[in-house]
């Protein structure tokens, strides 16, 4: 049935009320006092006395010297900083370290090392799932957690039947879209993930 573009858009359109945002809060002139926290990073308890403004990302990179987790944008737009917290992937730049007292944090360094790579890391090497390597730790951490999400039956935007969540290339592309690769190793990343999925299935 022919329809006009306007008709079709109206059917799907919905008004969205924008919440007003407040002005900038006054910048505090007194330094916030350091906070003592413990992060369980890759299975090891790491005690830190830390400025509460430090992101989880900077706690890892600058305080614990775990520089495998990358900073691509520092505000939740690229996925280079992806780590797992209690098994779920998050953008570590969007979370403060002090919010994770006692949490189990998983980073790329905890997955595997040269000579003893995690299957996902090995698949990325075999399929050339990266070029410059800067987005890569984030892609790999994200991919491992993403497969677990599919196994757990968590649906995505492209899932047709919410009761039947299954692995597919389209699911991978949708669920990995928060991890930008400007070198655009995308086809190779999808191939690597497919391999790991098939080997584990």
């Amino acid at each position, binding site marked *: 049935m022919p329809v006009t573009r306007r008709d079709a858009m109206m059917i799907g359109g919905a008004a969205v009320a924008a919440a007003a945002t407040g002005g900038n809060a006054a910048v*505090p002139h007194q330094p916030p006092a350091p906070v003592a926290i413990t992060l369980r990073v890759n299975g090891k308890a790491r005690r830190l006395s830390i400025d509460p403004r430090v992101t989880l990302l900077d706690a890892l990179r600058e305080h614990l010297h775990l520089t495998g987790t*990358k*900073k691509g944008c520092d505000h939740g737009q690229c996925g280079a900083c992806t780590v797992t917290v209690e098994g779920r992937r998050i953008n570590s730049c969007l979370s403060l370290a002090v919010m994770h007292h006692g949490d189990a944090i998983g980073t790329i360094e905890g997955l595997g090392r040269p000579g003893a790579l995690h299957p996902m890391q090995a698949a990325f090497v075999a399929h050339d799932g990266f070029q*410059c*390597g800067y987005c890569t730790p984030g892609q790999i951490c994200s991919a491992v957690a993403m497969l677990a999400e599919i196994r757990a039956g968590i649906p995505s935007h492209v899932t047709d039947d919410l009761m039947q969540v299954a692995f597919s290339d389209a699911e991978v592309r949708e669920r990995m879209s928060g991890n930008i690769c*400007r*070198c655009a190793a995308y086809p190779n990343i999808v191939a690597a993930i497919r391999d790991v999925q098939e080997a584990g299935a």
Partner: protein
Amino acid sequence: MKFESPAGRNPIDQGRVVGVAQPRIDGPLKVSGLAPYSHEYHAEAPGVAYGVMLGAGIGKGRITAIDTSAAEAAPGVLLVLTYKNAPRQFDIGHAPPGSPAPKKGEKPGRHNAPQLQGPAIKHFDQSVALVVAESFEQARAAAQLVHVSYAAAPGKFDLAAEKQHGTVPEDAPDSVVGDFDAAFAAAPTTVDVTYTTPDQAHSMMEPQASMARWDGDTLTLWTSHQIVHWAVDGVAGTLGIPTDKVRVISAYVGGGFGSKLMIYGDPILAALAARQLGRPVKVALTRPQIYNHTSHRPATIQRLRLGADSNGKLLAIGHDVWCGNQPGGEPEKAADQTKLLYAGANRLLRTRQTLLDLPLGASMRAPGEAVGLLALECAMDELAEKLGIDPIELRIRNDTRYDPEKGPERPFSTRQLVECLRTGAERFGWSRRDPVPGKVRDGRWLIGYGVAAAIRNNLTVASGARVRLGGDGVLTIQTQMTDIGTGSYTILAQIGAEMLGLPIDKVRVELGDSSFPQAAGSGGSWGANSSGAGLFYACRNLRDAIAAKAGYNSTDVQFADGRISANGHSRSLAEIAGHDGIAAEGKVEFGDLTKQYAQAAFGAHFAEVAVDSITCEVRVRRMLSVCAAGRIINPQTARSQCLGGMAMGIGAALMEDQIVDTRFGYFVNHDLAEYHVPVHADIPDMEVIFLDELDDKSSPIKAKGVGELGICGVGAAVANAVHNATGARIRDYPLTLDRIMAKITVPAVA
């Protein structure tokens, strides 16, 4: 060694390691997060302080007042630099002291990038202050306390409004062959169309970042740069110190795409602050700063006039380009590919550059060709449609064996454009294309096919390397060459292994350190071929040294399986190297073979798109690129280079657009949420085919580059496919939904 006559047979031709797909040797380090990028050298800089740069809040004008007192009093702050207290630096025109005279046509100190030298603001996010503190959080908070007042001046921010003032750039003179006007006027079939391409951002994933440490009067700088000796020159020149007082390390570079051919605020400000504080300082640009503080691919307006006879033979080719830049900035040479791509007796190519007050325009992946082909290859599609000739056939009919401007005395060294087009047509299933737009449907989706030709000029640059064979039988390669994701580590290991008859795991490669021999670096697709050629000569010298030490003077010496053999005798390389090892250096310089022969890599891109007939959303369903680019040293990494180029080409076609606020003179969409680059969901499985080719005029290793060829023409193939799907001919990139919706000629179907 000067490479000035075509290469004969040499050990690279064995094809034992070279030419074979080889996973990256730096792969295990990268996938485990252990490869260090410039901001990540903790052990080298104990007690590092953090610098946060503040950028200008106007596009043009001057600082009228700057108050740093609150910032200076803020907790943890060690130093606040502004133009009032920053040390004097040297601008372009001042080479580092003691450096040799620049080459002809090169400005002395052309890589200089002084910071904080006065109240004048030339572009948005130009550095106006650096705040250094004990911690990043302290520096960032204090930077908010620097109060800057400005007097904004009117600026020129709109290319379309300024283009009439354009002048002929020094390095893009008019190119006139035959009588274009008469031939175009007389041509039975013509197209006269104007395309525009927007400003684009490299958007590599690693932001510019630098860490500076002084040991006495010597600076060590960990920075993210594509060409190490350019960084040395730029930093030394800006600071006014000799180049041997600056060591630059760029061992791993998180993408560049041209952005990191230049230096910006981070290395200079880090170096100044570190010297003043007597401790290491690191400075990283924030993601939003990158868009207005650094460089970008400048916008173009391009008028294409093509005149053909009824068989499709081009009689007249006219390409006019308008672009703009800061004073001293280079033109976007979007007509360059039009010099070489098609035959035609009457040609007129002109570039006009006008002054703009936007941030500096500079090189981004395939400068010139990437945007030039967006226009030329769509105009060819328009011409094919007018003539009723298949677009592939039209291109084949206009093939040329020689430089069409210079004539048969300058033949192409290799040119497989026709083979690329034919191979691609067959593999892609081009015969299934219906030339009438809107005929092929898949439910509510309209399906279209598009093709475009690709050409990227072959550039070569002098390059050196040092090699050493150890008593353990391991070959170590050292060169300033960088790996920005291109695969340099791996292809150099392959070349070393091939030359010395070693397995690749007996080769170690160390890159991106200015204490190594100067090298081509990564830019202009010259890296693999040029640095590989430099390594080739270094290895040849090492082979001679090994043979001499072994006492083999025969010319018929074989290197294989870790052994050298001649006349029935054989010895292990490890044993000959002995405790002290054997070392050699080598360097390639290029003669005038690129003048005698037109040298370029060629390709053909094929795209299938689906366009939603209601929303006009475009999905690229599949793509194929066929490339002929000389010897492919590593088919796996070369394929990845092409895939990356294809994805960036899809971005250029469909989404990438730095939007200029012409009132205030800055790029509005300055982050990754607003400047859209392709994500996983945008990119389908894509195919790359390399045709067999050796270019013996290009270098002793007979290779060319693919990193830029991969993007050249891709966007045009996508745009032509959108036209085939919808009937909409969009001449303003990118092809966003609203633009397609305004021009679609095919009815919607639910």
